[in-house]
């Protein structure tokens, strides 16, 4: 008998609760929309409305940019298996650069769920082995709520980059499309990032530092 898979929404709710004060980059489609459904609009969530295949890359840039900042904790990416496979090369870039703050969750349901459930190639890919072969500091695969909780405790205490592959089912919440202006999403995230810093003036692009000097 096959054990029941975790629900994606259940996993997203857990991640939100586990990292309330942590920058989180959300992949497009069901991951972003279900996180909005279970957690609402959160300042610490950077919602990617498209850019498929680039979720981990955005989080990598954030983790590198915040490497020496006085924010606390990790930078999270919540990615799907289909999107990850579209930009798999980033695993090698992460392994090479070793951003110590980066924690990636891959919610693997084996399909492109948002577009009708077409299968991905993930079922035949050992992502834990791929990540560790790319020199990530650690990677685990989990299938139950208990394993997810234990892996998250481990990941939050372990220097990154670390990856957790979460096997989830294909159940979906009934959610609406999310049509917020992306410029507002970016600005909201910047504001949260600034407010989360002990010394926000260290963040030039959100503290109003001018590149061009004075004048109108």
């Amino acid at each position, binding site marked *: 008998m096959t054990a029941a898979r975790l629900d994606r929404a259940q996993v997203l709710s857990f991640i939100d609760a586990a990292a309330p004060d942590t920058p989180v980059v959300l992949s497009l489609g069901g991951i972003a929309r279900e996180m909005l459904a279970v957690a609402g609009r959160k300042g610490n969530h950077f919602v990617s409305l498209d*850019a498929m295949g680039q979720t981990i*890359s955005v989080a990598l840039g954030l983790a*590198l*940019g915040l490497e020496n900042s006085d924010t606390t904790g990790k930078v999270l990416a919540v990615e799907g298996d289909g999107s990850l496979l579209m930009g798999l090369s*980033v695993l090698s*870039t992460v392994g090479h650069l070793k951003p110590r703050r980066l924690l990636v969750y891959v919610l693997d349901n084996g399909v492109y769920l948002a577009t009708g459930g077409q299968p991905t190639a993930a079922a035949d890919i050992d992502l834990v082995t791929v990540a560790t072969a790319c020199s990530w500091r650690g990677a685990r695969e989990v299938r139950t709520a208990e394993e997810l909780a234990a892996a998250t405790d481990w990941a939050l205490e372990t220097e990154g980059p670390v990856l957790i592959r979460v096997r989830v089912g294909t159940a979906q919440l009934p959610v609406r499309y999310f049509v917020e202006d992306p410029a507002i999403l970016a600005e909201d995230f910047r504001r949260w990032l600034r407010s989360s810093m002990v010394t926000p003036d260290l*963040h030039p692009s959100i503290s109003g530092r001018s590149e*061009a000097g004075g004048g109108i």
Partner: protein
Amino acid sequence: MTGSSIIAEDEREGQQEILEQRSAAVIAGIETIDPDHVLHLASSTLKIVLSHFIDGPGARPGRRVFAMPREEEGVAIAAGLELAGARPVLIFQDNGIGNLLTALLTLCQPYHLPLLAVASRRGGLGEYNSLIHTISERTEALLDAAGVRWFQLDARTPVDRWAAEIERAWAFARTTHRPVFVLVNLMGS
């Protein structure tokens, strides 16, 4: 030595001199920006520029210099860096423009994230790769179709103005909250 081979030798030396002068100007322009992250992709025409940042004087403490396997990955990493308040610059050649358009138009453009990309021109006079023309000659048209602002540096701009133009392009990206490309012709045509 025949007359024609002497001319060919002179032409090569002249092209090399132009390449070195223009590469030095591009390096000076990028150094004026003082990026803390330099993301690059392999390019024979950019060899002098890339060497400066990878293992030359530009490889300084506090600056992270690394290769992006694909241009679109670099765009997305730069987007994250911008959100974090960092100062990234991308360096690659123009035949990779096609790879990055989707990331550019689904991330940097709609999210209003500034980005400076310095892309070397390929194709045209002096090009030795027989098939690179097909995409490189369409670089401006591709960027125009995407609504991406670009500036061109070639023989029409005195090389002693290049560094200042690159610095202005950086400021322009920030002023306009969008990606800006500087297309640099290092090959002399």
